[in-house]
């Protein structure tokens, strides 16, 4: 076994999985470096959850292989190092979060840091109540705590903030960042770009069961540093044609990877702009641009 394979929290190549006539995953390559947080993005049904199931060893891939810290996914050694949220929060009604958390910690042979978890995930008031009748958000918070209670080195989180109020979402973001800052690796699926940007340093975009784009967010941004200039113009005035500016009913916007030149020329041509702002375009827009450039030569 080579050195990098052992060090890498996740190293997966060519994963494929079919359910009957549905090819859920056809070719997934993933790497997660030590201490890295990877965001898995993709539309509904793209194969994100199936990929996580294979990485957790809950499902056998039809093809390809996945290793967790160099151990085959799903092996005892791999499971000892990983934590995950349950797919649905159908805990036995008769148990309290404290009991479920204590049980889980016993399986990892660790001492549960119940106070820290209660604090991070807002379990204080519900720790000793039976989960029967918990709200969706309360169940979600228990699920999140369960992923971390075994002090794992790698955590899988499938749409972790679905059903959480914004306070609980912020709490989760802080907890995830703290975990990564302490050296933990993390894989997260989410539909919220701001959540991915808040927590992850790398992304993998999955579409119809394939990895279509992956990389570190910083590098993707550097690869195409596109900015958006937004400004207002006096009534009846339109920007010059070369700017290809778009109006959104409120102000004008120009997207460009040469923002300095554009701005200089606007000044030279005495365009009477007002309230000018200049900011990097959002990650989702950037990725849409990159994918468009790749598919339209």
């Amino acid at each position, binding site marked *: 076994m080579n050195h990098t394979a052992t060090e890498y929290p996740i190293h997966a190549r060519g994963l494929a999985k079919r359910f009957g006539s549905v090819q859920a995953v056809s070719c997934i390559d993933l790497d997660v470096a030590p201490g890295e947080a990877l965001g898995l993005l993709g539309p509904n049904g793209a194969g994100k959850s199936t990929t996580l199931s294979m990485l957790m*060893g809950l499902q056998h891939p039809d093809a390809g292989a996945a290793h967790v810290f160099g151990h085959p996914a799903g092996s005892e050694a791999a499971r000892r190092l990983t934590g995950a949220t349950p797919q649905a929060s159908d805990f036995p009604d*008769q148990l309290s979060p404290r009991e479920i958390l204590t049980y889980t910690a016993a*399986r990892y042979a660790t001492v549960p840091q119940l106070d820290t978890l209660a604090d991070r995930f807002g379990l204080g008031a519900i720790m000793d109540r039976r989960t029967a009748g918990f709200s969706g958000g309360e169940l979600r918070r228990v699920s999140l705590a*369960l992923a971390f209670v075994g002090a794992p080195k790698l955590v899988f989180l499938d749409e972790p903030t679905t059903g959480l109020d914004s306070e609980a979402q912020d709490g989760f973001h802080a907890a995830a960042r703290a975990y990564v800052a302490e050296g933990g690796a993390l894989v997260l699926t989410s539909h919220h770009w701001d959540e991915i940007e808040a927590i992850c340093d790398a992304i993998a975009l999955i579409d119809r069961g394939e990895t279509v784009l992956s990389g570190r967010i910083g590098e993707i941004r550097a690869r195409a540093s596109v900015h958006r200039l937004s400004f207002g113009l006096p009534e009846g005035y339109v920007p010059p044609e070369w700017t290809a500016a778009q109006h959104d009913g409120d102000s004008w916007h120009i997207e460009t990877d040469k923002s300095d030149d554009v701005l200089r020329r606007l000044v030279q041509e005495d365009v009477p702009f007002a309230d000018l702002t200049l900011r990097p375009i959002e990650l989702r827009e950037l990725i849409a641009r990159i994918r468009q450039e790749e598919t339209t030569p």
Partner: protein
Amino acid sequence: MTRYLIAECALNLRILFRQPGFWVPTVLFPAMLYSFFGANSGGGQWAANAMASFCVYAVLGVGFFQFGVSVAQDRESAFATWQRSLPGGIGVQWVARVVAALFFVTIAVVLVVVMALVLTDQRPGAAPLARLAVVCLASSVTAIFMGIALGSFTPARAAVPLANLIYLPLAYLGGLWVPPMFMPDAIAAISVWTPTRAMGELSWAAINGTGFETRYAVILLGWTAGAMALAGLAQLREGRRA
């Protein structure tokens, strides 16, 4: 490992204890039915046999019925799936389930014996009771594996009716409600091959202090081996499907 086993047992027992829907029918019913129908079946050997029969019925209720249903429900629960992603072997989980089942079997059987002491003038000695306990223990193993086998092949919603459909006729066929000597010939011919008849015969021999018949011990072993094989097959199938 020990800590995991203790945690797993505590989890199982807590869930079952806090679920009156489980323990009222399986733990209290055998003693209740015995009080209604078994306790007035005359004296002497009849009374002793009736008590032993309801002990076996209690074993069957907890082991087969509840195990079958809970194993089927587990297969459809996301929590049980998630448990498979945790460290620690699956074997411990099974051991804990058996421990929890034996715990409830013990209560159910003890209740039947207590009702017999209260309602009848039987005073079985320590030796017959110990022999009966051994037969109940052996029968529990068979019943539990039969339950696992059933639960492994049925969807959760079908498990309850199907378990009833097997469990009640088995109790009748085994002669737990009507002594085998009163059975019509055709039924009696089937009866001797059922696991419940084997359990019944062994329990009657136990409480009466007569010798165990090898034939019934072998039949019980056969059913245990068959149920184990089915349960094992289901586990393999489960593994392949994933």
